[in-house]
């Protein structure tokens, strides 16, 4: 169930995040993300500009893909539970690409009533190529 409450007690190393499928990415979403984020780099809007820059055409903002990965985390852990998220943009996302965000629990720790879960996170396109790789920490409530 989407937005179900997750407790630290019920999470184990090796658990996988429910995959989040986003897209196909459309130009209108890149235009909307430009407006929302303030990143108006024409490389995400203007195909001729992107080609002249040697990028072969328009591609999505890395930050849009990172937003997708953050959504995969908060759909699972809840809004406001992400304490850290760091990613590397490994490959470009093109128009019509479908992005699937995934994650796996790699560690758990508790200190002073704070329960932290560490995850390896990544996103891949429809060909299974990783477009984003990274790590995240979420803080979860405990039943104990």
């Amino acid at each position, binding site marked *: 169930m989407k937005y179900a409450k997750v407790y630290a007690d019920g999470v184990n190393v090796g658990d996988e995040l429910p995959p989040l499928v986003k897209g196909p990415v459309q130009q209108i979403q890149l235009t909307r993300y430009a407006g929302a984020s303030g990143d108006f780099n024409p490389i995400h809007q203007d195909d001729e500009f992107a080609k002249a820059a040697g990028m072969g055409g328009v591609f999505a903002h890395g930050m849009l893909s990172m937003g997708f990965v*953050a959504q995969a*985390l908060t759909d699972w852990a809840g809004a*406001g539970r992400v*304490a850290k998220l760091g*990613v590397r943009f490994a490959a470009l996302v093109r128009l019509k690409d479908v992005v699937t965000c995934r994650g796996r629990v790699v560690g758990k720790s508790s200190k002073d009533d704070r329960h932290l879960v560490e995850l390896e996170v990544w996103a891949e396109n429809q060909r299974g190529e990783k477009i984003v790789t990274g790590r995240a920490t979420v803080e979860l409530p405990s039943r104990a």
Partner: protein
Amino acid sequence: MPIQINRAVLGKEFPPYAVTVERGKVKEFARAIGDANPFYLDDRVGAASEWGDIIAPPTFAITFRDEAADTNALLRELGTDISRVLHGEQEFEIHRPLQPGRTYLCRARVSDIYEKTGKSGPMAFVVRETTVTDSDNEIVAVMRGVTVVRL
């Protein structure tokens, strides 16, 4: 001939700037990502939540730029332009969710510059770290962005 990156920019501190989060911008940002989480979009859900109001998605701090500054100034100072840069990496440490109506202070600096040669040729990596504090001077977020410059 490959361009040279101006390493004198390393350590540069930008003038601190204040940002007040607008309610509509939080919702616009969540919607642009296609994230319909009610904690970002629904004022009633926000009001009933532990935060007392809606909160911003984890990556929202990326919108915190100094609107009074020339956004291309750093690229010019580095000796490059927007057609040669890519976003290589990004990290957010979030101590508390950002919320509408609050004013935050951002302090940014160039914390590292290094060069590497990749598949597509020589590249410079410029790391910018921004610390975001609230009105009590408590750190609410730290973001680190790595800009890749194709040399």
